[in-house]
């Protein structure tokens, strides 16, 4: 039905445009100075037909109780009416360009409002379901309980083990990604020749472009056994779903993020600062360590915060390589579970929206949403607050 609606609306739009242009041309040849070009009369008619058709068919398609065949018919009727109306309005003194530009501006404005609607939608959907969850489960028990077993009997929804697991894996990832990413950025910005940069940049972009499900597969099937075997060969007990494997691969995933952000920031430090340092007799690395990095520090800190928020929200790597059982453990060789793993596993498969088990995923979602939002906000604030204005 959707296809039919779209086809009818498209035909109506193009038809109205052609008719409008033809009519305006005819009137113009008959005499009189037109305010607007004929094509604007056509475009105005076309856009009115398009918008009314889309509005009507969308409204009808979204209401489930209305039979599907009605929507294309109504769309056709609405666009035809709109076409008739706008064709009749074509007169020499009619300011069609003004009217059309108003419509365009309205469309542009509404598309930028979609972003706000998305945020509201996200907030509303997680908040609504979490509210239902917190009616069944005490929020204090959720926040401070130390046992997470949503499928157990009785189920327990203590969020602390998940928090610990998330922090553990994120820490491993950041501990790997920060030095690697930062050093890579320094080398690319300060030492590498232009040719080398041309090779290295796409290479890092390649790593950044690898889907996380691929990294998850790699973490689960190659990295985890590798770590397990090498750990066991020196006598350590390593879980096959160790936090280390997931954290390590996640860290490598984040390296391009940190390096590209830091690269931009280091490049933004003005050359005059470096020149001043060289003039005092400092070596290249001394200049970097004592002048460039301190100047770039706020930006680097905000890059790391964005990386943390990325690591916390990352799903596929941990779903595939980390554990399902929420153990309360800080041991990187043990299996831990994370917030995102639980959201994914709770909502895949059968969903009953009246049981706290399903709803708990939304409570976890709201926690995750606010975590990442706060980190992102802080990152932006740090950059804004400590930004140096070099003239």
């Amino acid at each position, binding site marked *: 039905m959707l296809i039919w609606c779209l086809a009818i609306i498209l035909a109506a739009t193009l038809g109205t445009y052609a008719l409008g242009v033809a009519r305006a041309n005819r009137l113009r040849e008959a005499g009189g100075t037109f305010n607007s070009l004929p094509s604007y009369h056509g475009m105005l008619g076309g856009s009115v037909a398009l918008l009314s058709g889309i509005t009507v068919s969308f409204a009808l398609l979204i209401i489930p109780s209305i039979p599907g065949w009605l929507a294309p018919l109504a769309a056709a009727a609405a666009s035809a009416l709109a076409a008739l109306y706008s064709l009749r309005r074509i007169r020499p003194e009619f300011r069609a360009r003004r009217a059309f530009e108003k419509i365009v501006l309205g469309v542009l404005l509404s598309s930028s409002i979609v972003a706000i609607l998305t945020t509201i939608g996200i907030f509303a959907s997680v908040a609504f379901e979490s509210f239902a969850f917190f009616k069944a489960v005490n929020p204090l028990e959720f926040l401070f309980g130390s046992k997470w077993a949503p499928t157990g009997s009785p189920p327990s929804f203590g969020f602390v083990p998940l928090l610990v697991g998330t922090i553990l894996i994120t820490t491993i990832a950041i501990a790997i990604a920060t030095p690697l990413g930062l050093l890579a950025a320094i*080398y690319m910005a300060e030492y590498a020749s232009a040719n080398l940069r041309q090779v290295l940049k796409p290479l890092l972009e390649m790593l950044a472009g690898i889907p996380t499900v691929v990294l998850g597969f790699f973490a689960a099937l190659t990295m985890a056994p590798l770590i397990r075997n090498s750990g066991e060969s020196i006598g350590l007990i390593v879980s096959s779903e160790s936090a280390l494997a997931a954290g390590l691969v996640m860290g490598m995933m984040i*390296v391009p993020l940190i390096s590209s952000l830091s690269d931009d920031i280091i490049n933004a430090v003005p050359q005059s600062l470096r020149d001043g340092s060289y003039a005092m007799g400092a070596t290249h690395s001394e200049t970097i360590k004592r002048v460039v990095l301190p100047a770039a520090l706020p930006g680097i800190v905000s890059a790391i915060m964005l990386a943390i928020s990325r690591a916390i929200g990352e799903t596929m790597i941990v779903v595939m390589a980390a554990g399902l059982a929420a153990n309360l453990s800080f041991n990187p060789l043990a299996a831990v579970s994370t917030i995102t793993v639980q959201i994914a596993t709770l909502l895949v498969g059968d969903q009953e929206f009246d049981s706290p088990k399903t709803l708990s995923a939304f409570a976890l979602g709201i926690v995750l949403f606010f975590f990442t939002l706060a980190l992102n906000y802080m990152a932006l604030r740090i950059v804004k607050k400590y930004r140096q204005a070099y003239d």
Partner: protein
Amino acid sequence: MIDLTRNSNNSFLSKRYAVEKRFKLYGALALVLTTVFLAFLLLDIINKGLPAFTEHRVTLEVMVDPAKIDAVNPQAGDFDGLLKDTLRAQFPDMGSRTDKKKLNSVLSQGAADDLRDQVVADPSLIGQKIVVNALLSDESDLYFKGLAPAKDPAFLDQVKDKFGITKSFAWRFFENGDSREPELAGLRGAIVGSLLTVIVALGLGLPLGVGAAIYLEQFAPKNRWTDLIEVNINNLAAVPSIIFGLLGLAMFLNVFGFPRSAPVVGGLVLALLVLPTIIIASRAALRAVPPSIKEAALGVGASPQQAVFHHVLPLALPGILTGAILGLARAFGETAPLLMIGMIAFIADIPKGFTDAATVLPVQVYLWSDLPELAFQSKTAAAIMVLIAVLFAANGVAIYLRRRFERRW
């Protein structure tokens, strides 16, 4: 010239130079490590995935027995039995239950289906003796690929000696939908599902994103509202993708009642997901066009919108296109939000429309990676190879566009 290295601070200076060298080395080391990781990852996947692109078949001379295959209704014929009898005829002394089991496990279930298709297409084959390259089961296939030990290698070697085994490119990997049998499972359904989903995602996300970018960059008044929209877009870009899945589940499925597992819903969610990416890239492209161009257009009497749509937008188009391709790549590789809206179901049929149940390539990778059969492991890696090839191609086009049309004003 004063030789600075010959003064009394010689050791101090050489220490500083050593630090300098070491620091540079650390930087290079970080890049080498990252490159090695990337190379290791890709080689590991290629190494695991390449075997899935080939399949082994056993060459059987089959008498299409009219007693078993009814010429009037060949569709219902017992092709499975036909193939098994042919196989069994060469092993007269294998009569016990376990022996029969062994014989039955040589061939894939798909072998009989292939033969049925062949005979239904050409009923004159009934009553003739034809040569059939029958597909092996995943276990025997893995043995001949040398990837896994067989339960009874001697028996399989005998089969090879008696009938002959051929190796060929596994076209069915691209022609079949998903299947429970590893040797029959293919990517066609996932590829079509991915295409449908990405079409919806870009069809919605691109106009919305470009529209928002044009508004914010060219027409928006500087006030609290536009600040709010801007902050909001930056925040949205950092929201974890799985949260968008929650939005899709709670809003699109539960409130609006859209169909589960449908590409249209997946596309909708991904459109919202890539919206910030497209907006940010498009804004950067629009900002890079020098204001003098717009001002010149305004100076000769164009309206603000004419200046933007006739002059600024065409010049920003390559940059916008690059952003769109990056958005497409992101949507194409995204998994987590699609799990929430049910695109994870086992679907053997190829989706025919935007509202059919479907799955997408990355989700197929996830699904296969979870299966216990060893053969699915190489299928997973092969699916990853296809996924990555598409993504690298998209990124390559984006890089090419950037180089080709990049303009310095």
